[in-house]
């Protein structure tokens, strides 16, 4: 059977996300409880988490989480890493045995800094340098897969039910100001750990429920800008779209959202002149970045999270607020199980984002 990257595998899913907008950190217990509740929305073939604020002691370094098929490829990849990065610290990612989580690959974690002179030589900044060389590992080093590469954040994922994956990675021992989670229901998968979600790149992480029908249009668009969609998954291309718009093209995040879930032409016509010109320009230039088909996603980055539905809300998404915490999930029950008395619960409209960012001055 072919794995992700060799074949495109559609999947249904459960997603959940929690942020404390004041930047207070809390353990992974709540998010595990939330995603566990939606057990029926995944089928044991993939689960994962993204956690922000977990490595404050290394917050200026890129935290790389890498899966290896064997120690031979690990050695090869490490020499490539050492050539391009200063490795500050390295070790395997701690896990505990959990029934139902089997066939684990080698899992290593590195805290690195790009070789500054190399980035300078290529006239690119550190983010771009890191992204480029990590994409190269995923593309060229068969059997090695970088599944997390941000600063002060990390992704934890694998084959199994998401709750089991969370306990396997001992997420209750980490403290984060923001957690997102994903339970996967692929229609066909060989159960490759790298194929589980979230998908991440630098500080971006995406968990996603749905199957986007614009996939190939989006893929061929981002690939013009140097990305390589090695996994052929929706989350991968969504992440690259946000990275392209926000990091490479310098677009404000709220504008990028209007590109990804562009307003309908009829709605644009109803706006005032200035907004109309702007929205029209965005749809004109970035028509291939529109994401179509059913989806709900939670996009995480260092500033917080953005939950988003497709333009006509073909997937469920519920949001809630309690004090400084904002919750989003595929089902309301997944919020209520960890927050039984929220101040507000709402169901965002299609194309209407839930923007839950850290307050200014909040500790990251």
């Amino acid at each position: 059977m072919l794995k992700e990257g060799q074949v495109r595998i559609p999947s249904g899913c459960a997603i959940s996300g929690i942020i404390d907008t004041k930047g207070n950190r809390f353990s992974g217990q709540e998010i595990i409880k939330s995603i566990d509740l939606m057990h029926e929305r995944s089928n044991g073939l993939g689960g994962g988490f993204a956690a922000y604020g977990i490595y404050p002691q290394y917050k200026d370094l890129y935290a790389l989480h890498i899966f290896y098929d064997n120690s031979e490829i690990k050695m090869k990849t490490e020499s490539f890493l050492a050539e391009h990065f200063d490795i500050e610290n390295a070790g395997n990612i701690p896990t505990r045995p959990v029934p139902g989580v089997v066939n684990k690959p080698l899992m290593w974690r590195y805290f690195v800094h790009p070789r500054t002179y190399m980035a300078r030589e290529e006239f690119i900044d550190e983010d771009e340098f890191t992204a480029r060389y990590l994409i190269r590992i995923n593309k060229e080093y068969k059997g090695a897969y970088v599944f997390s590469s941000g600063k002060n954040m990390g992704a934890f994922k694998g084959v199994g039910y998401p709750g089991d994956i969370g306990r396997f990675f001992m997420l209750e021992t980490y403290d984060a100001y923001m957690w997102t989670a994903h339970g996967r229901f692929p229609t066909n998968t060989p159960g490759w750990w790298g194929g589980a979600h979230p998908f991440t790149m630098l500080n971006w992480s995406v968990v996603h429920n749905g199957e986007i029908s614009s996939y190939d249009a989006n893929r061929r668009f981002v690939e013009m800008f140097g990305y390589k969609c090695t996994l052929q998954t929706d989350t991968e291309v969504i992440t690259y779209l946000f990275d392209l718009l926000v990091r490479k093209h310098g677009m404000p995040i709220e504008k990028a959202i209007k590109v990804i879930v562009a307003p309908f032409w009829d709605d644009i016509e109803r706006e005032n002149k200035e907004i109309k010109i702007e929205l029209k320009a965005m749809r004109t230039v970035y028509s291939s970045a529109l994401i179509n088909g059913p989806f709900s996603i939670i996009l995480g980055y260092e500033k917080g999270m953005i939950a988003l539905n497709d333009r006509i809300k073909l997937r469920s998404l519920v949001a809630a607020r309690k004090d400084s915490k904002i919750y989003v999930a595929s089902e309301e029950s997944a919020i209520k199980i960890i927050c039984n008395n929220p101040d507000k619960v709402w169901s965002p409209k299609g194309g209407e984002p839930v923007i839950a960012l850290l307050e200014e001055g909040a500790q990251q």
Partner: protein
Amino acid sequence: MSLNFDFPDFEVVRNEKNCNKCKVCVLECSNKVHFYDENKKTLNVNNSKCVNCHRCVVLCPLKALTIKKYPLEFKENSNWTSRAIKEIYKQSQRGEVLLSSMGTSNKFPVYWDKMLLNASQVTNPSIDPLREPMETKVIIGRKPEKLEFNSKGKLVTEIPPQVELNIPIMFSAMSYGSISKNAHEALARASSELGICYNTGEGGLNKDFYKYGKNTIVQVASGRFGVHKEYLNAGAAIEIKIGQGAKPGIGGHLPGRKVGKDVSSTRMIPIGSDAISPSPHHDIYSIEDLRQLIFSLKEVTEYKKPIFVKIAAVHNAPSIASGIVRAGADAIVVDGFRGGTGAAPTRVRDNVGIPIEFALAAIDQRLREEGIRNHISLLVSGTIRNSADIVKATALGADAVCIGTAALIALGCHMCQSCTTGKCNWGIATQEPDLVKRLNPDMMYKKLVNLILAWNNEIQEMLGGMGINAIDSLRGNRLMLRGIDLNEKELEILGLKYAGQ
């Protein structure tokens, strides 16, 4: 020469029982196939003159007429077909280059028919266009690499001029001269009602039609007929015509008999003079010359009009297209070799160029590899026969399509492929006033509107079926296509997987 070996192509059969000798057929046939013998009181036919345009058949009130292939068989021979033999009779009789009209009639593969579309099942829902918005609007023109916003989040990038099409279809370039004024009026009015565009071709723009300017593409071709400042500024965009799918590498020739007073003043040439468009533009001998023409036209229109460049689909179309993008054009129009024409040398029409499906797939892929696909719009033409062809063209990578033959068929063309004679009984490819008035623009423009709206509905249905609600998300989305009855090389060029993969 005394002995002519030629024989008729068609036989007109009259059912004498039904015929009441009303003589409509005599009146309607500009080719003078039907004639009435006053002495014998009989209606007779001259089969040699019949082009099979169906005019008499359709208008016969008692449906007493049928037209058949002339029942004359040569001894069977797979190499020397009756067509091959007839062409030699014709050329040896008259010593002429053979001319043909409309697209090639030879049997070449139509790759549209070898592609199948996808639809949603279970893992994602299809979308019902009757209940949900379903967008088919497209914006044609040059796009900046990216948009920039200032520190307050306000857009600072200016967007170059664009053409908005409510439906991703335009009417192909067909000149006033090659088709009638009434046909042009129908195209112009339909475009204006639909929010799309028609194209003047190289025939200038009649004064009466300036009011449809925002739905008009004005063409600049090698003969420069009817080109002046006001004309260039009259349309929504300007198209530089380099080539045409039916006759790549060949110019055009409108015979003097079609140049009456009105055509003469629109084209700015003397009445009765032949209008000859040379094969190359005499100021374009390479890509850098094209750039100069593009920018001359931009200067004269103060950078308010997008400039399209139309080429025929030929072997190295991808690199030509790349050059056109870099030369500063706003859109490329590629016309495939099955495309139509008023007149082309038969040998050129049937042997030069490549199918539009391959040209489109190869150009789109090449421009993406160079990272410049998003800079321009890509339009295609040359046998777009129905809405499914449009959906497939979009999935291969086209922004929109142009239709010529299909539009003429809606106006009544019966594909007799005899446009060169200038005696079009349907009032389309003719300048004879009595024939032109047979095409009533008030009535016929509605047929065009009906056709395009029907196609748009079908496009929306197919988009919805794929779980897509904006045509933007189909453009270049080749995963929505699968090949059938194609070999590996064909799949590779089209960038498709095989059905079942």
